[in-house]
């Protein structure tokens, strides 16, 4: 792919994911509502909510200062950069050399910490408790993430997400069992890891819109990451032109809809992971990550 094409693909991808992230969130909510027999808001409802919020004048808490003014922006910037780095329909985009797995997960952590700083600044009860809980969950989630990254790094010889997906696209991320275990660990962390629930009580108006938008972007980061690593079928390869991109776009759309529907169905059947069970789920994720790393190490020795 020439430089111009790579930049074009990157711009297209960024515009696409930024536009689609709230819709994916709305789609999941709509399917969940449908599955439980309610009409549900339309999938583009999150965009309407954001538009409504962004027109409102934010009201800061009295003792809010520096952080409340800067960190919602930092949170959104980190999340937006993370979602721009994870490939959706094409490989070999302009930012591909930057798309390291550790960097992407680090950017997500930056977003989480920025949000926690806002919630701590107001000095209120609930937000402080939720920030502490998020820190605790992160402490359980990070070992699992690092183990999964070790496994993927051993399998693919790199931690660059673009190269890893390219390897998987050629069916070379072997043994597949290790890759699936590592992705299972990542998925569990995505489901049970620290979220932004309860941290936004003191935000309002445009700031709240920024933070909610960032939350939907983070959800899409995880979705794209797992879809790309597990089912890269149809993605445009680094040399591909517009035809390959269109095919990749279609494939990506179908995969996102199917996985979102699957997630909604899973939540309908099994429910959300209750807070008290999350540490346990993260422990299971760590074990999956360790098994994946062991399998990868064993296969590397056998090879």
């Amino acid at each position, binding site marked *: 792919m020439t430089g111009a094409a790579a930049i074009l693909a990157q711009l297209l991808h960024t515009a696409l994911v930024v536009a689609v992230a709230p819709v994916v969130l709305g789609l999941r909510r709509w399917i969940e509502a449908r599955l439980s027999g309610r009409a549900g808001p339309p999938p583009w409802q999150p965009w309407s909510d954001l538009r409504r919020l962004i027109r409102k004048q934010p009201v800061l808490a009295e003792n809010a200062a520096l952080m409340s003014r800067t960190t919602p922006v930092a949170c*959104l910037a980190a999340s937006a950069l993370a979602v721009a780095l994870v490939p959706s329909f094409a490989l070999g985009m302009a930012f591909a050399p930057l798309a*390291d797995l550790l960097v992407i997960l680090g950017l997500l952590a930056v977003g989480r910490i920025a949000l926690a700083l806002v919630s*701590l600044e107001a*000095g209120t009860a609930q937000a*402080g408790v939720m920030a*502490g809980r998020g820190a605790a969950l992160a402490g359980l989630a990070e070992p699992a993430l690092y183990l999964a990254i070790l496994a993927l790094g051993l399998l693919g010889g790199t931690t660059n997400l673009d190269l890893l997906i390219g390897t998987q696209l050629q069916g070379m991320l072997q043994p597949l069992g290790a890759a699936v275990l590592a992705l299972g660990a990542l998925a569990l962390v995505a489901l049970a890891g620290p979220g932004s629930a309860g941290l936004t009580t003191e935000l309002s108006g445009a700031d709240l819109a920024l933070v909610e938008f960032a939350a939907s972007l983070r959800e899409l980061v995880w979705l794209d990451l797992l879809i790309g690593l597990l089912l890269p079928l149809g993605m445009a390869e680094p040399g591909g032109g517009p035809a390959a991109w269109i095919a990749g776009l279609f494939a990506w759309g179908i995969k996102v809809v199917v996985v979102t529907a699957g997630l909604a169905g899973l939540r309908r059947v099994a429910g959300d992971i209750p807070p008290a069970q999350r*540490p346990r789920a993260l422990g299971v994720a760590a074990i999956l990550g360790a098994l994946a790393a062991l399998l990868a190490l064993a296969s590397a020795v056998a090879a």
Partner: protein
Amino acid sequence: MILLTAVIAALLCLGGLAAAWPSQARRLAWSAAAAAVLGAAAASLSVTLADLPAAITLPIGLPGAAFRLSLDPPAAFFLALTYAAGAAMIAFAAASEAAAATATGGARATVSIPICLGFFGLAILGADGLTRGAALIAAATALWASGPADRSAAVLLCVTLLAGAAVIAAAAAPPQARLWAALIGPGALAGLVPPQRWIGPAHREAAQAGTLLAGVAVPVAIYLMLRLLFGTGSIVPPAWWGLPLSLLGAVSAVAGGVDAARAADLDTALAAGTVRQTGLVALGLGIALSARAADLPAVETMALAAVLLLAGMQAIAGTLQALANGAIRDGAGTRQLDRLGGLVHRMPGTTVCLLAALIGLAALPPGVGFAAAWLLVHALIGLPHAATLPSQLLRCALIATLGLASALAAAGLLRLTGMACLGRPRTPRAAVAREPPRPARLVLAALAVAATAAGVLAGPLLILFGDAPMRTLSGTGVRPLASWLGIAAGAESPGYAPLPVTGLLLLTAALVLWLRRLTVPSSIVSGPAWEDGFAAPPAWLPFGDPVTQTAGSGFVPEFARCLDPDSMGVVQAADRRGVAPQGAYGVPVSDARGVPAPDLCTSPAPDADGTRARDGSGTPAHDPSGVGSAGTRLPWPGPGRGRPAAVFLAAGSAVGFSRGGGVRPGSAPALVLILLAALLILCSWIGAA
């Protein structure tokens, strides 16, 4: 070389003069700071110049054993770090002393810091064990003489003396003893476990010396460890040397992280954070030694680069954190988190500097810590694939430890910033805190800029200053895998590029800000905090109701409490008595009104009607049954089943590692066995509900 020796002499003379003329101490301190800056500049220039090593013999010394000094790239690198940190400390001490007589030990600091800095510089410049050890002993004595003569100072003196003695003894001992000398001597000084239990309080109590220890003594100790472990000349270090270092490093990193995340005051958090950094350094040294034994120069270079970055981070960001602590201590009158809060209003500059230091120390992009963690992860990935299962388990354990340490660092960041600087003031004194005077603020700002720039420019800095030391230490011609944009793990892998990532981050932030400006008026409207609908506090509580915000002793990540046997005991004892541990104002250590400190290790017991009470009636502090809600303790990572399993895995790893590499035909049954064990643990966790 001669200039650097002259700088040391100048520092010692200026310190001595300041001791003799207390009235002129401040002016002399500024000269000392200038001398240190000059030394740092000379040392950093000489890293990149090619005329190293240079040597000089001092005309003084013991009979028959003159003190010899020599300067090679690693020494110049660490000398530059030490002098830069020391210059900042001297300037800060002089500036705060100028404004406030209340500055703790200000007069003493302007005397002791130049002298100690001079001796520590001598310890780096020393060409042999005798000179280094003697300089270290002299520094220890100066440190002890300057501080109050209490127990912690004595502990500190003993440890530093021991480190000096170990360095001297290692010079004469056979090379095999060098590992133990490094662990007992400089390792203990830098705060590796097990002696970390005693060093921690010493770091904390030694008021002014704590700054020196965090910013100067720890890099010096790291340098001495590097010298002892990698300066063996032609002798290749044995393969097993990496094992105790990595294990001790991993344990120290987690222990320090846990302590930092539940420290009650700023200085304890600083000392524990130092222990965490030292643990990461030891982990990197262990990986580098293993890679050298396996003849993998690329991996060794990566691990050494991580060590250099960690040392630089400790010197800059550690000093910045220590000085910001000092500013808070002087400005708000206390270092107890329970008595701070809301400093962002009165001390915004210090708050931002503290945050910059903590981001630099934590593994968050684009900080230096993230670059170091990235290098460590890739060094672990690149280590040879040993066939024995326990050694593979060990590698998994090390990388999980790395993850845990980075999460703990992030939790510590949130807690320190959140409790000390954000929220509402917890005492009237904190509500009238004052920023340090302008020169001191400038010192803090310069360090914050340096810490941030070091993260963004990790690649160029490694090329400029890390290249020559790494070649000297590893003894190979492999170029470090850094480029002007960032660092890379291999030729085919793009690696981590902090410069573009930061640029994009700033660009995105600017875009978001611009869009926000378009829709929202720039005027700021503020009102009472929503606080879930609680009423406004009464008039006699001008800073709000203290129990409606997280207590200063709160916000301890629950897993940190669970991991620690002592606090486990507290929780369980409180559990039995049905009372909570006491916090500030005599209120229970609960994070908020009606929301007791959450304990993830104890799931709420179902109420009579089968619902889980939202107000936490199942948590220990409010357990009406008083029997500790039997059967509700989650097995992860509590002491129940998790701990024996972890001990089992760790013991297995150690045994396997000590047996060494080589494909053993009998490893398949062991693999099956371990997988079965892991599945059993998994099932027991799932079935524990």
